[in-house]
């Protein structure tokens, strides 16, 4: 315990000394972060409050259905924490130089593991936790819950919930690293991805949200009854279910059921964490050795042949050619990059396949507008996530090797714009595929399709520009892990700014969309003037975002290296 406290103290000291440096850039970053975080928390709070108000008062779906949807959201939240911990802990538990350093010191392996786990847990879960906190306040405020509710929920529901997700992720990683030593890293990773996708598909197949909604609608407006049969037995064994149940029964005032579900959650969390420590005591050091062995045996003696070979003459002029080839190999030879990309691509394919089957078969203009906006926002959110993960770190991943480019006879603007172009092409293509797929259901509303496709180009450009610009301005050439770069303070700030931009998008699109669906419903010819005004403002706003982002990025590029 003494060792743990000693190391944690110095880590905390180092963290506070670096984050509280009185430099103009860091002060600006902190003030901007404060505003954006505050604004975002406020927005999340109001969004939650209004959504619950809508569900409860306008749609009149009742608190049972509200908590079933909450349970699904919590499942996604659980997976996010779980995946986040697997990915980040791979870096902190195995790849980190600090880990290597501590293994050469007389620090017990379990103590080192605990330090790294805490590091990992706080690093990968803080942003999600903050979002959850704002949502919790929105929820509590709507139902007029006392202050003890927040305290109890945070301590006895949220914390165990997050610990279960994190400890399961880290335990799985240790076991996987040990297995990888026997069956190879590729086979292990493929099994992991297949297993994970399987779990997600199985969950939504079991829960079947569409069936839940249609089942509930049969009983409309008495939607708070007859729901016993809608809970698939398997779902009752999941932490998201226990948490949603505890919240639901708390509203109903059934203390015994609240305590039962809370107790299950806490008990399972204790078991998961204990299991993780037990496995860590047995496996952490061994799996770290396996990792080193895997690293040593990985096939690295290959100067590439083929299309992207450096030796091959390119159609581009030499500087452009070598920069493209470098980006390509740097990306595809880094497992954490291509594996993450593969997972995201898979999710996009699943999403596109699902959305093709979707019908916005309602005639209610309000619901049509909301459904369309949800779909649109989801697409944009996906692009925001991809950009944050892959575009934001683009400049930082140059690392300290960037001296070669900085001291070479090449303009930095060229390097910057080439990175922009390399990010824009694949993301724009993915974005348009998503948009076409999501507009498939409303192909007959040509005005909407055209607007959607056109605005999405500007939206993608804005988001990519924002991420590259701020990613360059806040570039950290010393950090070698792209995942850590995309979850840094600057990245979080960029993410929240992207969300603010998303809110701006919703504000610009919602009124003309509602107007359009209303006119279509009443069979009145629709005047496109309102669309033009909104789209004009949207394009103007996007252009400002693009210009400001690039000017920040280019400025950051010219700083001393």
């Amino acid at each position: 315990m003494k060792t743990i406290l000693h190391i944690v103290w110095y880590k905390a000291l180092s963290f506070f000394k670096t984050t509280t440096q009185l430099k103009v850039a860091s002060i600006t970053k902190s003030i901007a972060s404060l505003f954006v975080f505050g604004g975002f928390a406020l927005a999340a709070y109001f969004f939650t409050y209004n959504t619950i108000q809508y569900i409860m008062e306008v749609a009149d779906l009742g608190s049972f259905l509200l908590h079933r949807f909450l349970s699904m959201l919590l499942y996604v939240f659980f997976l996010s924490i779980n995946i986040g911990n697997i990915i980040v802990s791979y870096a902190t538990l195995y790849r980190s130089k600090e880990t290597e350093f501590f293994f050469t010191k007389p620090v017990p392996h379990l103590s080192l593991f605990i330090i790294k786990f805490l590091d990992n847990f706080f690093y990968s879960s803080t942003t999600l936790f903050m979002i959850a906190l704002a949502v919790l306040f929105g929820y509590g405020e709507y139902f007029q819950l006392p202050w003890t509710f927040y305290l109890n929920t945070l301590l006895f529901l949220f914390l165990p919930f997050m610990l279960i997700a994190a400890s399961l992720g880290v335990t799985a990683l240790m076991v996987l690293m040990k297995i990888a030593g026997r069956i190879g890293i590729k086979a292990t990773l493929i099994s992991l991805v297949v297993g994970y996708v399987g779990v997600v598909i199985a969950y939504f197949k079991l829960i079947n949200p569409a069936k839940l909604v249609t089942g509930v609608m049969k009983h409309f407006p008495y939607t708070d009854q007859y729901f016993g049969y809608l809970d698939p037995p398997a779902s009752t064994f999941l932490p998201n279910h226990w948490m949603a149940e505890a919240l639901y029964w708390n509203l109903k005032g059934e203390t015994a059921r609240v305590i039962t579900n809370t107790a299950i959650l806490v008990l399972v969390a204790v078991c998961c964490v204990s299991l993780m420590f037990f496995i860590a005591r047995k496996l952490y050091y061994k799996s770290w050795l396996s990792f080193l062995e895997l690293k040593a045996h990985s096939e690295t003696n290959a100067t590439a042949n083929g299309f992207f070979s450096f030796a091959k003459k390119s159609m581009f002029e030499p500087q452009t050619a070598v920069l493209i080839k470098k980006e390509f190999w740097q990306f595809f030879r880094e497992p954490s990059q291509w594996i993450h990309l593969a997972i995201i691509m898979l999710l996009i394919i699943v999403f596109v396949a699902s959305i093709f089957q979707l019908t916005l078969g309602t005639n209610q203009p309000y619901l049509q507008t909301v459904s369309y906006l949800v779909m649109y926002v989801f697409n944009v959110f996906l692009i925001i996530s991809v950009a944050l993960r892959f575009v934001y770190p683009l400049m930082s991943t140059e690392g300290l090797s960037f001296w070669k480019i900085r001291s070479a006879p090449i303009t930095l603007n060229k390097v910057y714009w080439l990175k922009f172009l390399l990010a824009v092409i694949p993301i724009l293509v993915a974005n348009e595929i998503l948009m076409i797929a999501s507009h498939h259901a409303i192909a007959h509303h040509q005005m909407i399709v055209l607007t959607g496709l056109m605005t999405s180009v500007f939206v993608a450009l804005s988001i990519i520009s924002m991420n590259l610009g701020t990613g360059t301005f806040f570039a950290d050439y010393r950090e070698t892990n792209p995942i850590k770069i995309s979850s840094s303070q600057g990245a979080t700030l960029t993410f929240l700014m992207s969300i603010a931009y998303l809110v701006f998008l919703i504000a610009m699109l919602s009124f003309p969309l509602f107007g359009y669906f209303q006119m279509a419903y009443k069979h009145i010819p629709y005047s496109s003037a309102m669309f033009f005004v909104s789209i004009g403002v949207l394009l103007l706003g996007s252009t400002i975002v693009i210009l400001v982002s690039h000017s920040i990025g280019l400025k950051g590029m010219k700083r001393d290296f």
Partner: protein
Amino acid sequence: MIKLHQLTKTFGSFTAVNNLSLELKQGEFFGFLGPNGAGKTTTIKMMTGLFAPTSGQIIINGFDIQKNSFEAKLATGFIPDQPFLYEKLTGKEFLFFSAGLYKLNHGMTSERIEEVIDMLELGSWIDRRAEDYSQGMRQRVCIAAALLHRPKVMVVDEPMVGLDPRSAHVVKRIFKELSQQGVTIFMSTHSLPVAEELCDRIGIIKDGELIFNNTIEALHDYKQQFDGKFESVFLELTK
């Protein structure tokens, strides 16, 4: 060939390089010495475009590094103190990458790369990724990359760090040959024997100011005022 005119670099209230002026002729081999934190690397970083000077001017091969950075950098071969390479590229790919940055003719690139690989005895390791390299191997790849475009000026920061005796011997031989061929070399080093062995002129910087700048012959004379050792001169000057 290299001209530093009243060069100053400040970081907030700290002055790393203070009003440094220096002129090197073609083929001159300049040894830049000084204690840790004296301003050697800062000067080199300004000469190679990694830092912008707070004031003053740097002319390389007749071109101002600030105003005509393309031409100035084209004439320069830079070897940094820390040989950072792109970890996921092989040594050979890094050499191709460097050649491309200097716009080398593609037809001649492969030939030139093989030439520098032989020159620095890089062997079969050149086809392994940089993540597997030792410090010495990284250093030699950086040196090879700096020589590819046959620069007129070499700016070298601590070239011998991490090199085994054989590699150090090879590198010293290459530098001597380059100097004889008319390449101007600006080399920062902590190794007094290396500076004495290779350089035509020695400069010593302390607290950002150039406190000694003379030919190696003048240094030999100066040494006699002490115990005949360069180390004693250095310790006295930087005291």
